């Protein structure tokens, strides 16, 4: 319905943009050019309609009711679980746990699977992880005396796989890695890493927060054990994330939270747990947002993740080219658009990213400036912060042009001369 035809080989981002109501607003009198999609994406009218439809036709608490609304709400809620499983190629919907966000999903694994680790065990991370895939493990290290190791990156922002292989050992109990860096854009060879990790008996946790919205991610094909991601970064509502796990492992894990829904039998001093996935979903879930999220999945499936990826590679290539043409900008991450996701982090050596972002904002251009929840990576790159433009299905070349135009203005304003006109 939004795309010219199902699984179309390409789509028109401007046609799509018309379905995202917020994109018609102005900022400081300019057209909103939203390039902060790695933080959160905007939502199509179909998701908003699905939300409204849920609340105006079937809202009820799930799993516990005999009446019609409860039955319909439960069916719609569980339908989302099956849809998500299909979208990420998880063979068994029982392995799909609904969380608040990717962060909660990662913490759930770190806390609950982490209970099996003790002094002498190692968790292998990378230098490019988001705080959400660092801090849970730092907490685990504090609690259980586990050691953390980190795969370094090279100067092109790629993981050093030679060192990765060296760091892997029978002591490695968990490998937790992002499938795509939210700062560098780097797409990591997760399947390859998972295979190596499995050979030493490590459990593999993939932070899919950036990859799942922009690439075809197949849980089974990746060969990982856990995959975390957030709905709000893939055109869905805020307040919803997923932990996809191998059911055999989830069955071995203890729940973190107790309460309604997750129990089988409760006595005053005894409780037993429900089956997976329910044992991890204590209390009333975020029903409405879960139900509405199917509209976002519809959109992505209709476009086809291949077409989404092609669009973003194309746009990123264009952005890299235009930014390079400005001269004098530091651009982080792999040089080749096909090796990276749809985002570009950059810095002007003479203008702080914070000032850049403010000036761009007066042009209606929304970019992020800061550490992007990756302070260790900032330290590794030797910068206090970067500016980041990140793309989505509704962005087009005009948006990149507006960014470049804004950057030109910023330089003129700060009296910084670039190499090009």
């Amino acid at each position, binding site marked *: 319905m939004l795309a010219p035809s199902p699984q179309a080989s390409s789509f028109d981002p401007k046609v799509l943009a018309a379905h995202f109501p917020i994109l018609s607003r102005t900022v400081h009198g300019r057209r909103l050019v939203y390039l902060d999609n790695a933080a959160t994406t905007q939502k199509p009218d179909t998701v908003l309609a699905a939300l409204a439809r849920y609340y105006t036709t079937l809202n009820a608490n799930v*799993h*516990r*009711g*005999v009446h*019609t609304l*409860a*039955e*319909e709400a*439960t*069916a719609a*809620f*569980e339908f989302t*679980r*099956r849809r998500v*499983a299909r979208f990420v190629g998880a063979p*068994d*919907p*029982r392995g*799909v746990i609904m969380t608040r966000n990717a962060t909660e999903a990662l913490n759930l694994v770190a806390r609950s699977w982490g209970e099996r680790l003790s002094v002498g065990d190692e968790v292998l991370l990378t230098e490019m992880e988001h705080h959400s895939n660092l801090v849970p493990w730092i907490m685990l290290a504090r609690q259980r005396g586990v050691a953390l190791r980190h795969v370094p990156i090279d100067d092109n922002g790629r993981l050093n796989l030679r060192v990765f292989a060296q760091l892997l050992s029978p002591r490695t109990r968990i490998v937790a890695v992002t499938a795509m860096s939210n700062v560098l854009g780097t797409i990591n060879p997760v399947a390859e890493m998972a295979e190596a990790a499995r050979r030493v008996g490590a459990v593999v946790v993939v932070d899919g927060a950036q990859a799942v919205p922009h690439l075809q991610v197949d849980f089974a094909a990746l060969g990982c054990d856990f995959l975390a991601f957030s709905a709000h970064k893939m055109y869905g509502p805020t307040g919803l994330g997923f932990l996809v796990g191998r059911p055999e492992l989830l069955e071995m894990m203890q729940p973190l939270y107790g309460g309604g829904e997750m*129990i*089988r*039998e409760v006595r005053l001093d005894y409780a037993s747990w*429900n*089956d997976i*996935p*329910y044992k991890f979903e204590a209390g009333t879930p975020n029903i409405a947002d879960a139900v509405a999220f199917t509209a976002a999945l519809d959109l992505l499936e209709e476009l086809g993740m291949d077409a989404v990826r092609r669009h973003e590679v194309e746009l990123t290539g264009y952005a890299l080219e235009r930014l390079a043409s400005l001269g004098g900008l530091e651009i982080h991450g792999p040089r080749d658009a096909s090796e990276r996701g749809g985002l570009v982090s950059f810095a002007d050596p003479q203008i702080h990213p914070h000032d850049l972002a403010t000036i761009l904002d007066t042009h209606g251009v929304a970019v992020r400036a800061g550490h992007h929840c990756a302070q260790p990576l900032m330290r590794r790159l030797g910068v206090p912060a970067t500016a980041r433009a990140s793309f989505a299905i509704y962005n087009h070349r005009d948006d990149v042009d507006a960014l470049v135009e804004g950057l030109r203005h910023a330089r003129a304003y700060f009296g910084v001369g670039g190499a090009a006109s």
Partner: protein
Amino acid sequence: MSEHGEVNLDELYREVVLDHHRHPRGRHPLPRVDARAHGFNPVCGDEVELAVALDGERIAGVEIQGHGCAICTASGSMMAELVPGRSVGEAEAQVETFRSVMHGGTWPTGSDPGDLEALEGVKHFPVRVKCALLPWVTLRDALRAWRQGHAQAETTSEEEGAP
């Protein structure tokens, strides 16, 4: 019940069903017990205490206690009438057939569902399906435990709408 129109309650509570509910069979203690299972539906509180007496591979008798709604009680009562005399394998097959009927299937040609046929309407009331199934999955688990040399099993009726 998923259709928003009128539903026919009589489809759910057929006269035969209400009769089993009012006068449930299988309440008499068995002289000897070879397998037991406890079935529980945490959603609504239905509970089934099942005991089975075996004569070799053949079911000699079934005793069913506990408390449940009309559908659960009737289904258990029908079971107490239907399975004695059958082999363990036949009883297990019947559990599977009934399950598939409840999940939208039909009775295989040539099968003799007996009174159980009167429960077919339950399939139009998805949240009640597990009430009808509870005694049967409890039986399945009792027999499975017996095969594995255990005397007792714990059953929970499947979560409705489970993934």
